[in-house]
């Protein structure tokens, strides 16, 4: 790793020095040993995000009917996954953090699915404003 040029501000702390000399153990018990993302990966992810943004704008030039929104959403999901996995380090996080995050998404999906399914089936029962409903006394 090229990351050892560390100019630690807590250089006096022996645990800290050990923390980044080896990401995967050997450090003092209980010291922080985070995953440090390499510069190369960060730049690649950034470039991929820029390209995908261009693609998502460019793809609207083509008319694919109903497919357009799915393509747009698909690209957004890929972009989001890149941000979450690499910028936010979820790939190297403890599994529970991933579970917490994914279950939030799952509950949004649950909510969305029920409300959308139900609202489209009662849609024809909605009274538009100005449509005077006769209330018989």
């Amino acid at each position, binding site marked *: 790793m090229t990351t050892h040029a*560390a100019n630690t501000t807590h250089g006096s702390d022996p645990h*800290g020095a050990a923390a*980044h000399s080896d990401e995967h153990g050997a450090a003092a018990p209980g*010291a922080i040993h985070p995953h440090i993302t390499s510069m190369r990966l*960060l730049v690649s992810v950034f470039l991929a995000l820029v390209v995908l*943004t261009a693609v*998502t704008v460019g793809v609207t030039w083509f008319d694919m009917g109903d497919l357009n929104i799915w393509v*747009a959403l698909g690209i957004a999901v890929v972009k989001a996954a890149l941000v979450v996995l690499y910028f936010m380090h979820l790939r190297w996080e403890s*599994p529970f953090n991933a579970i917490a995050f994914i279950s939030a998404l799952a509950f949004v999906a649950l909510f969305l699915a029920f409300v959308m399914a139900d609202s489209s089936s009662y849609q024809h029962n909605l009274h538009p404003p100005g449509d005077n409903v006769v209330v018989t006394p």
Partner: protein
Amino acid sequence: MTDVAHSNAAVLAPDLAGHNHDPHLAHHFDTPDQQYQSGKLAMWVFLGTEILMFGGLFCAYAVYRHNHPEVFEFAHRYLDRTLGAVNTLVLIASSFTMAWAVRCSQLGLNKPLKILLALTFLGGVGFMGIKTIEYEAKWKHHVFVGSKNKYRNDSLKGVGKPVDSNTEFEEEGAEVEPPAENKLSAHKTAPGAEGKAEASHEAAAKRSDVGATTWGRGIVDPNAGTPDEAAIRPTYADPGGLAAGVVPGHHGEMHYADLTDAQRQHVYTFFSIYFMMTGLHGVHVLVGMALIAWIWLRARRNEFGPTFFTPVDLVGLYWHLVDLIWIFLFPLLYLIH
């Protein structure tokens, strides 16, 4: 695993465990790693709550877009997709500098850390600046949220009424179509679209002839004008219906004239959803900027290094979430096809 059980003895007697020399270690934690992992866990759970909160707005969006696709296609043309795309890039870039900043803090590179945090902050400033320009344009075109929105009258007016919308705004020269500069350059105008637009104007004119008796799908109420009208009329209209003779969307742009009366009621809804979504997102950007400023001040005091960078990491996570939400908002609001 986060649920690693930790040494009870050390939790209860830090004096013996010998970790209490670390000024950042709170008394009820056993080790710095335990504290760090706790912070991370809490932040991820918090981000989950943020997603659920925005989930409500996405749900409202999905329901209205699903039921009124034409309306969304028409109304979204008020949004400037160039500015939207630029803002997307700005946020992505600031996300990148933030991720880089976290790396620097982990490595104890304090000087680049400060520069990167400042750049990230500037990204936020840029984003909000562009957002202000966009909001100002909406204000000028009378499509802001609230009673000043020119389409709000359509919502209040209801179906079956003659269309003479927006008289209030006509004096000021406002039109019901999006201004020319917002007509998306990205849209190729299909050959013959001009003629099509004219045809749809004619269709609209036809509908105005029947005036009070026309509903979606061009069904004419046979009881129109009779005393029984109100009683006989079915208590619903089909808001998802299409104007007679109009095939919306696929080959040309949606025009105001292409929308049925029932659809026009929901043009205002689009702007409400747009402003609620981008507004709440904007508030998050501002909060994120404040947090980054706070982190920057702490970085100036050389507080962060390989043994202590949790605040930078957590603020970074928050900032990436703000980016994440925008990644979805951009295509959903600006790139409707």
